[in-house]
């Protein structure tokens, strides 16, 4: 086959794509399938699934709540707790972590203590926190603080450790002081890890908030009048026997958690525009 003939005879190869290969379409299909299976399983009273209220029932229970101020107040309370506890964890955890990363001596003194405190689950601290702190809110806040701080600190340390040595060398050779290096090399390089630590930390925080609200609001043996929040909402729905509301509460928390993660990711992109998209 001569080259001229060949170039005329070869058609362009173009891949065909059917609509079912589109990832978004597939996502929609899978979620719809999940909802349908849930609905059917619930109605047919299959084991386990049969006791879960069906999606349609859940939606029916949800609509009136949307106009109930108490429901939105629960949102506010949980979000407030998450926000304040997380902020406190960041304010203390980030500087602490940076100190541990930059000063060998400081790290050698504090890291072992950090490591023995870390395996204790945050919720195990609840009774001790209640004994120690004068108000309920403060004790919940303390537990939330604990939940987030370990993750944040670990990520800060990890991020600072993995800064390429050559950045320091380059800065030094251009005449930077220690403080300059800290501000212009260490801090920006650590920011992406801080963002990741926050993303993970916020998930833990929601877990802790929900559990703390359930425990102190009536779940378990610790009773108290203060409380509220979405975790409390779920628990009291359970006690009160309105099961569809349990699922409403769960989905609400899921949405709230997703929104807060999205906010953190967005903030992360704003603060660290150079970070690679994963």
């Amino acid at each position, binding site marked *: 086959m001569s080259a001229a003939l060949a170039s005329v005879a070869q058609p362009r190869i173009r891949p065909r794509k059917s609509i079912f290969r589109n990832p978004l379409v597939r996502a929609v299909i899978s979620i719809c399938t999940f909802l349908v299976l849930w609905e059917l399983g619930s109605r047919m009273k299959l084991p386990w699934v049969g006791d879960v209220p069906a999606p349609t029932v859940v939606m029916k229970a949800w609509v009136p709540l949307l106009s109930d101020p108490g429901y939105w107040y629960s949102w506010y309370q949980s979000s407030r707790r998450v926000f304040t506890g997380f902020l406190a964890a960041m304010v203390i955890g980030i500087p602490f972590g940076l100190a541990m990363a930059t000063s060998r001596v400081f790290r050698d003194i504090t890291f072992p203590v950090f490591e023995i405190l870390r395996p204790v689950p945050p919720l195990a601290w609840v009774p001790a926190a209640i004994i120690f702190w004068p108000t309920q809110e403060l004790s919940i806040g303390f537990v939330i603080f604990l939940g987030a701080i370990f993750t944040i600190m670990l990520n800060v340390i990890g991020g600072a450790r993995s800064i390429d040595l050559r950045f320091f060398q380059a800065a030094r050779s251009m005449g930077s002081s220690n403080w300059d290096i800290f501000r212009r090399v260490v801090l920006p390089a650590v920011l992406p890890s801080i963002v990741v630590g926050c993303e993970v930390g916020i998930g833990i925080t929601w*877990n802790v908030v929900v559990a703390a609200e359930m425990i102190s609001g009536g779940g378990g043996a610790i009773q108290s009048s203060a409380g509220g929040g979405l975790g409390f909402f779920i628990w009291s729905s359970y006690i009160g026997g309105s099961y569809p509301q349990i699922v409403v509460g769960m989905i609400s928390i899921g949405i709230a958690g997703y929104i807060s993660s999205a906010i953190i990711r967005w903030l992360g992109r704003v603060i660290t525009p150079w970070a690679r998209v994963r």
Partner: protein
Amino acid sequence: MANGKLGSSHGEIGAWEMFLYRFSRWLRSPTPYLMVVGFVLFFGAWYLLSEVFKVWRFASLPGPHQVLVEWFNPNPVYGMSLYTPNYYMHVWMSLRRVIYAFVISTALGVPFGLFLGWSRNFREFTFPVFETLRPIPVLAWVPLAIVMFRSDETPVIFLTTLASFYATALNTMLGVQSIDESFPRAAACLGASRWQVFRHVIIPGALPYIFTGLQISVGVAWFSLVAAEMVSGEYGLGYLINSSYVNVQYVVILIGMISVGIVGYLSSALVRIAGDYMMQWRVRELALGGGR
């Protein structure tokens, strides 16, 4: 480095020798002594604040000395110490639940994660549901779990398994996706079928990430377990902590907390050691400062 490899005249360095070498180097650095300083500061402060000076709210908190005395007491005031059998019963109840949950979540989560990473079709159909359910905090499932599984034990194990499952599956998937694409390509060149690539390249390649995920999953399991036990359960360390608060046996609270910490740490370490053993190649690679 003659012959391009490190080793004694008898052969390669074994794992035990490596460990001894690292340990002796550690002893010679200031690190262990600073560690002692840290502990002294922490426990000293606690002791002084709660037992000696009884500052502010610290007064109602048991101090380290009180806790240790009670914990090691053959005849404990509140009935719970290293000498009482019911202490071990609580420990065992919690441990047993974690073991069940860990085994189930690993058996389900690792294959699930492997397929999520390996097959685009599978991932695009399954991951959306997974990701939609994930933002719901595991502990928010507590009441629903109690409703679904009427018994006492199953909800607790379900919650713990769920939390571990997420961590394991995600990390496994990440592991598969992080494998350098030249590895499966090389295997394909060498005549391996898709299934062989999966078995000989994907699984070993993802193993480091899988073990990281397993360590995380053990930690998460303890986290969820304690919470679940505090809310609904009988026996177990979470339950113990809770009921000691109710019965105003504050020292036992701390004994419970410390016990959870220790058992949790040991289980995590166990997973890590198992991982190091299974991945000798990686330990050596990292020790020589290499690796990609």
